[in-house]
């Protein structure tokens, strides 16, 4: 869907709202995992990558210990490769630590159908056997097609299926906000 032909229906988060949501998620991650031992973050391409980097910085500020960050591209694990007319562009995968026995927090901007997360779970398990995998998202917009849920949610946003939730981040888009387009 071309986002340029859509008009903005509502603004969900501004820069300050995004920051507060991520700081809260950082606290929740540390609380749920009782610290940062054995913890690692993996951002899903593209906007999960800067979000994972920010969460790592916030956790560092809270706990004083650093959490490794990996980058995951799930394209080769998509379940629609046989029906797309041409193959999607591959982006970098770089997980610079062994996932074996780690507590992995997957990070993405929006959870929608759950298919991206399904692909990401397969991709991580191909790299090794983590102790556990949790999921952190900035926005949960509903409409799941698979039995998958997020462990940490910045904001729950009820949407219609045809609407688009656009997360704009400084690192990828040069601006900082979350809007609904229709």
């Amino acid at each position, binding site marked *: 869907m071309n986002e340029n032909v859509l008009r903005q229906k509502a603004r969900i988060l501004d820069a300050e709202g995004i920051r507060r949501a991520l700081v809260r998620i950082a606290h929740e991650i540390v609380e749920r995992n009782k610290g940062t031992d054995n913890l690692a973050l993996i951002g899903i391409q593209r906007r999960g990558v800067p979000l994972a980097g920010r969460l790592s910085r916030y956790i560092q500020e809270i706990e004083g210990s650093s959490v490794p960050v990996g980058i995951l591209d799930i394209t*080769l694990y998509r379940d629609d*490769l046989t*029906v797309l007319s*041409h*193959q999607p*562009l*591959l982006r970098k*995968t770089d997980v610079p630590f062994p996932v074996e026995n780690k507590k992995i927090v997957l990070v993405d901007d929006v959870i929608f159908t759950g298919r991206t997360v399904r692909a990401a779970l397969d991709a991580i398990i191909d*790299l090794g056997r983590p102790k556990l995998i949790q999921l952190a998202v900035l926005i949960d917009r509903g409409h799941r097609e698979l039995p998958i849920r997020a462990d940490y949610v910045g904001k729950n946003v009820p949407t219609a299926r045809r609407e688009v939730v656009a997360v704009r981040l400084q690192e990828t888009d040069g601006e900082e906000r979350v809007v609904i387009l229709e």
Partner: protein
Amino acid sequence: MKLQNKDLLGLATIKTEEIELILDTAARMKEILSRPIKKVPALRGRTVVNVFYEPSTRTRVSFELAAKYLSADCINISASASSVVKGESLKDTARTIEALGADAVVLRHPLAGAPQLLAGTIAAPVVNAGDGAHEHPTQALLDLFTVKEKKGSLKGIKLTIIGDILHSRVARSNIWGFLKMGATVSVCGPATLIPKDVERMGVSVHHRMEEALKEADVVMMLRIQLERQKAALFPSLREYSRLYCLTPERLSLAKPDALVMHPGPVNRGVEISAGAAEHQRAVINEQVTNGVAVRMAILYLLSGGEG
């Protein structure tokens, strides 16, 4: 951005952006090769058929591994062990392969243009794995990938290709590929092994190796293809080797960080000495590894669905 054609037949007509797409995709594929479990599910349920009418080890194994790392099924057909010996034509063989359900066909053939004929006969993508003395695009793409990885960029790179240019499909594909990516290319060899009017391709020609090596960033040595030489084109292997064998001493005439490349198989002591082949600047083994990543990229990019 996507590939413009259903097939990859050569680099003569491919666009610069298509080469860039293949090289970028190959860089992503290379990460998979470093994993303990080298397998992704992208081409699950697809079948890749390798049809080789000429002997080959590295290219065939490379395509086979590329298909398997992407979870495709892979079947190998060699001319000597198939109905080809019973007189079946290439077109009929192709139709049979298609009827068996191939989703991509990789073809090596001794005649230039055979992949083109095949591509026009069947709906599945055809990848040229070497046709006569015409083109060997996947070899050139892996050479481009290797140089780009080592040097950062292909723009302004000075490549010299030394040896049997006349019979070399690797040379032809590399000349087209490197020129498109902004490199300058020279070729060198005895006059009998340099194609007439090769300058029209945009390359400079040397007959003395010492001149060709001057200022080179990349030295690409080619195998003397005794199996393709019908006439005696040079007096003896010994004389050829005296004039055109890459030795560490000759290599010192190139730039201090020049790469040594060879598409293999190497005739040690003929076109390259053991000292040069095992030189710290030789990237011959890395070329082989990169070949798998490049072929994974090509199989992936050519395997779009019906949608």
